[in-house]
């Protein structure tokens, strides 16, 4: 469930961050026009748009960035801990660019009116570089989670950072940033009372040129798909309907924006009013949402491919937990344990908390009761024991047969609306059967790394 929170927040943050990155580039172009041609309209646009940039990206953008960090801790402290361990110096490097972004941005925000054209442009260029460099660094860390590449063999930071999806992802995000900045600019221009209609037409036409590089998106997107691991690509291309739908949503939204931009650029008198610009922005948000959902989704069942499962259990630990139990050494008791009529259900609740709770609820969003409540008890035992076969994007079950049976009983009890009486199942033949199922499934996920 917490995973959904980070997904939602992530989409919002990415949209704002990309707006800031593209916004910096857009402002450089307009300031250059002012310096080169004495374009006062461009200068007025820069001064007006920059305030929006500061108010949105410096405040909400910066704080949602911090929020992403804190939310990731909530979702998977082990994942963020591993990322910090591996890439702390690169994160620290990104921080130096945050500082540069704030320094150049605020210097422009406070003093732009009294600065000469060259200094204004220099500040904006520095701002744009700093914003883009923060994308550069974080992109390497995020794409490492999906395609850790050579890092798996040599453990080198740079092998992990410059991984297979690094460049297509970086270029695609840069193009997306330019598009988002242009669309937001079209909204801002339409909202600004200081521009007359003719000025609005001129400005919107100019900002729309920033949408032209979108023509490269299909190529870069194709490159990204081509370098994805085969299983991940399979899910996007129809293997997982949710993933395919979100991918289609992103692609269709981008296509619509691109088509509108094309029409706009070839029809000189076509004007984008505020409502249309806002609608295009909403589409861009939809495209971002689709893209981010797919990026997060195709990593499954891992948060760091071939290293850490999405429930924060490592590949090596699966076999160990099958021997000793996943919650045997859990120091935290259940909250309100009296709600469970038997110790077995309490154990099931602990197993759920340990292995499922990151992505699932019991009977709410993505709830186990909804997903597996109609299965027979034997189906439950088999499907959970061989979870990685049941759903290839799920990690293998990492616990003892007793723990698995406890989880099965918890799902059934919840599915029956929590009756006050619920007997324990302790038939040795059942546990033996579960052990056999698990043995047959093995401890590796279905997308395990091929033997070297």
């Amino acid at each position, binding site marked *: 469930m917490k995973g959904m929170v980070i997904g939602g927040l992530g989409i919002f943050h990415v949209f704002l961050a990309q707006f800031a990155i593209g916004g910096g580039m857009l402002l450089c172009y307009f300031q250059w026009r002012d310096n080169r041609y004495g374009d006062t309209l461009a200068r007025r646009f820069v001064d007006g748009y920059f305030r929006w940039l500061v108010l949105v990206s410096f405040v909400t953008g910066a704080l949602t960035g*911090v929020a992403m960090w804190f939310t990731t801790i909530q979702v998977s*402290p082990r994942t963020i801990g591993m990322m910090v361990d591996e890439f*702390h*110096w*690169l994160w*620290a490097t990104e921080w130096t660019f945050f500082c540069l972004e704030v320094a150049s941005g605020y210097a422009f925000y406070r003093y732009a009116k009294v600065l000469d054209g060259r*200094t204004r442009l220099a500040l904006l260029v520095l701002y744009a570089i*700093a914003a883009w460099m923060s994308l550069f660094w974080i992109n390497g860390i995020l794409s490492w989670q999906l395609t850790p590449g050579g890092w798996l063999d040599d453990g080198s930071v740079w092998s992990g950072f410059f991984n297979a999806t690094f460049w297509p992802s970086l270029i695609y995000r840069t193009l997306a940033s330019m598009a988002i900045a242009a669309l937001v600019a079209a909204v801002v221009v339409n909202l600004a009372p200081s521009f007359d209609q003719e000025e609005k037409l001129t400005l919107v036409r100019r900002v729309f040129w920033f949408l032209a590089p979108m023509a490269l998106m299909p190529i870069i997107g194709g490159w990204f798909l081509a370098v994805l691991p085969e299983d991940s690509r399979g899910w996007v291309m129809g293997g997982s309907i949710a993933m395919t739908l979100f991918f289609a949503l992103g692609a269709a939204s981008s296509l619509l924006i691109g088509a509108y931009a094309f029409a706009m650029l070839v029809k000189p008198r076509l004007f984008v009013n505020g409502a249309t610009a806002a609608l295009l922005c909403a589409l861009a948000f939809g495209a971002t949402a689709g893209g981010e959902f797919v990026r997060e989704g195709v990593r499954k069942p891992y948060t760091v491919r071939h290293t850490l499962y999405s429930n924060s259990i490592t590949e090596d630990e699966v076999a160990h937990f099958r021997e000793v139990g996943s919650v045997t050494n859990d120091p935290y008791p259940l909250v309100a344990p009296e709600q469970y009529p038997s110790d077995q259900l309490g154990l099931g609740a602990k197993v759920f908390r340990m292995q499922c709770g990151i992505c699932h609820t019991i009977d709410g969003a993505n709830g186990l009761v909804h997903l597996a409540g109609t299965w027979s008890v034997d189906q439950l035992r088999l499907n959970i024991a061989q979870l990685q076969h049941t759903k290839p994007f799920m990690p293998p079950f990492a616990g003892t047969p007793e723990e698995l049976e406890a989880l099965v009983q918890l799902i059934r009890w919840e599915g029956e609306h929590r009756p006050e009486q619920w007997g324990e199942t302790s038939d040795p033949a059942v546990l033996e059967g579960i052990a056999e199922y698990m043995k047959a499934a093995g401890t590796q996920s279905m997308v395990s790394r091929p033997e070297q």
Partner: protein
Amino acid sequence: MFALDLPTENLLYLVLYLVTLVLHVVAMNYVVGGAMVLAGAAVYRLVGNYCDATRSIVAVIKDWLPLALGVTITLGVAPILFVQMLYKHAFYTANLLLFHRWMAILPVLIVAFYLLYLQKSEWLERRAQVVRAAVAVGVLAMFLFVAWSWSENHLLSLASQQQWTEHYAQGRMWYLTSETFPRLSLWMIGSLATLSVIVAWQLRSQASSTTVHRLALIGLCGAIGSVVAAGWYWLALPGAVRTAIGESANLVVVIVGGLGLAAFVAAWVKMARSGRMEARLLWLATVGLAIAIPCATLLREVRRYVALTEVDHWQPAVAATQESAQFGGFGVFLLFFVANVLVIGWIIRRVSQQVKHAS
């Protein structure tokens, strides 16, 4: 001295953590102290009028507070990174245990940030005084909530496994100990001292004698108030921490910090008497503070060190940090750190020259 028994790699992260934390604290003090002054002034304005000195102090703080908050947040990223390198288990556990309560600081900070922009807007200036006071008090309340939450998170990260287990089992949303209020008071009141010095530098060229008196009052309240709060905190500290602070090397930190604070107080008293903002005295106050803040930050770490070295996962955590230090990237960080510091220096110089020229 505490922490000197750590491996070299861990010491490096600790030093980086402390240095970046001090930078964050300086900016944070401006924000918190500034919000306190603005709220106090706005409430006072409901019953009386400002003098010119107060007006100029309020105006400059109002003008710079949004930037100060932006800088505070940005400078806060680095210590959060290094704290994870050093104290992952404790930090993450406290985060998880406080969950919604902890995460609430983010929307609160976003609202407070926008209110700071609203506070300096002409639109708000045209509203009734009671509305302006409500905004100023609201901003302060939000910063107090954030400060409270940080203190709570920090203290919970120092608790024992048994306390964590109890906290979780009872589904508590708050973590209140005898240390919470004195600790919070120390940081809150101490922020006024930093504020006084920074505002003094901002207003130096135009400060009247009344301005000097007002700033001296703010600074001295901060310094003396923080000494009182520190005394209160001392009484609330666990015995083991008091013993550790009493050890000779740590005692030196207390004495040096105390001397820094004494220099700060002496400088402000002298300026208040003369009614003039003399550069050398202002430098003395600044240097005094520049000594006192790192010392206070070091002593803050003694409290953590004593708590965490007693727990089972301390040694594995030390070893893990040592291992992480072997990962590459330090050279790149150093390169861009120096380059970006130079570029930021160039920005400040270039913009200052042009602003000077324009005025």
